[in-house]
């Protein structure tokens, strides 16, 4: 499917994330942390990052304007596989390949990679958000989960995602996706320690 034509990339720092939900989240982080010099774009995950990076790398507005590129991806089941997939995609697109996460390449454009949740474990962005929920509230959520477990109705394979949506389901608007909720004030506390590595990453670009 085709997206409407986007504006050309105009900022010197570019963050590439998996999908539109992540784009919204990053934009919320930018406004929470008063970051104005970074632009965020969707570049796909394990299935389409390779062609997408190639397309971005030959785009005029990218070649003319961008000197620092950050890539944020979920580790999902494996940090190693995700790292290998990103490095392969970068190399295919003739972009510099970093030695390790969080360390920029010296070749331009400077490329820096962050693999969520912590550049080490399996998991995803939702883990970071779940970690930021107040302990007292997580206890309430766990109590509910234990109750569901006793009824053999607890089937989730993604605890962090469940915790997030359980938490969100009793907010003023119970129907928001994570990306939409990130834009609402009072839903998430981006000063929480859980977000500090993402902040460090963005500041390093």
């Amino acid at each position, binding site marked *: 499917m085709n*997206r409407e034509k986007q504006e050309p990339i105009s900022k010197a720092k570019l963050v590439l994330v998996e999908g539109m939900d992540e784009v919204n989240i990053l934009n919320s982080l930018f406004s929470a942390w008063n970051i104005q010099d970074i632009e965020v*774009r969707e570049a796909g995950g394990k299935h389409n990052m390779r062609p997408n990076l190639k397309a*971005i790398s030959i*785009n005029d507005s990218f070649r003319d304007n961008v000197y620092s590129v950050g890539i944020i991806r979920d580790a999902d089941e494996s940090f190693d596989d995700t790292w290998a997939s990103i490095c392969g995609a970068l190399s295919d697109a003739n972009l510099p390949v970093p030695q390790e996460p969080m360390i920029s390449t010296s070749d331009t454009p400077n490329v820096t990679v962050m693999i969520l949740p912590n550049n080490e474990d399996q998991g995803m962005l939702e883990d970071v958000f779940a970690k930021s929920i107040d302990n007292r509230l997580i206890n309430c959520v766990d109590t509910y989960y234990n109750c569901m477990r006793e009824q053999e109705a607890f089937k989730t394979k993604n605890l962090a995602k469940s915790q997030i949506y359980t938490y969100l389901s009793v907010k003023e608007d119970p129907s928001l996706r994570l990306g939409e909720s990130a834009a609402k004030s009072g839903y998430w506390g981006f000063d929480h320690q859980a977000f500090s590595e993402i902040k460090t990453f963005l500041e390093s670009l």
Partner: protein
Amino acid sequence: MYKSIEIKNFRLFKDFTIEGLGRVNLIVGKNNVGKTSLLEALFLQQGPSNPTLELRINTMRGLEDFGNNPKEIWGSLFYKSDLQNKIKISTIDDSDIPRTIKIALTTLSGKYVTKNGQENIQEMLADTSSVLNLQKEYIEKNKKHLATRAFPVSEGIQFQSKKDIHRPNGHFIGARTRTKHSDNAKLFGNLAKEKREKQLIKYLNEIEPNLRSLSVLLLGSESIIWGDIGDEKLLPIFALGDGINRLLNIILAILNSSEGIVLIDEIENGLYHKNMVKVWRAIYDIADENNVQVFATTHSDECVEAARQAFEGVGEDEFKFFRLRRKDERIEAVGLDWEMLNASAEMGLEVR
């Protein structure tokens, strides 16, 4: 079919190469990156024994009035108008045959042997102080021919050529210049003689379903094509709208360029964007059937998107997409494969 072309010292190109050409080639890029110049280079290369092409590409760009100073007539062909360096246009085709033309403004000398015998050039000159002529050499498989010469004489420009170099046809359809009605009538006549006009009508029906037949008749003293769209009388083709005339130009050019090339500048001109998918399919079908290689430029996103839809699923050598861009002082061609073209569309990234 050409696989690659190398251009030196021509128009905006100091040293330019484009490789991986296919059956239909779509070329995009900002203004002033050499899209039209690339078509012109291919046009010159295709007609090595035609001495008028170098002037024609200038008149197509609007140079109507020229004096008899060769530097003014042909200077703009040369990179930065520097006449010291020869223009060199080299191609390799799919049988790996190399062909080169070299064009230079050189001092006229001696006699030139034509089919009519020897002619003394000095006697023909407009001005004995202007002794420059535009000279074109053609080299095929390392065999060199002095192919053409052109120089101003008192009555205009004297063109001379060796007639024994045979190359398949090439047609150039300019962005703004209209093909003459009589030229189109002649091309149509070629088809009609072979009873191939039905093929043409089938494709024109894609954008004018009411068109039943075409015929060549006089209007005043000019031969032009007339169309039957079911009215009581035939209508001259120019009365049927820009779209059908543009498509007619394109299709006639392709049908009459078997084994050769057709060059179309700003292909979208005159064509309604919602018809572009059909137009591309028609171009591809006819080009494939007649073994013609097509080069087209566009400024239009819709036109690129239409090509992407029309060529979905054809073989990878059938449709190629290139973007010309400036990199420092030079111009480079960047090829986008299917995957990149699709990815750009999905991300909403501009590919022009």
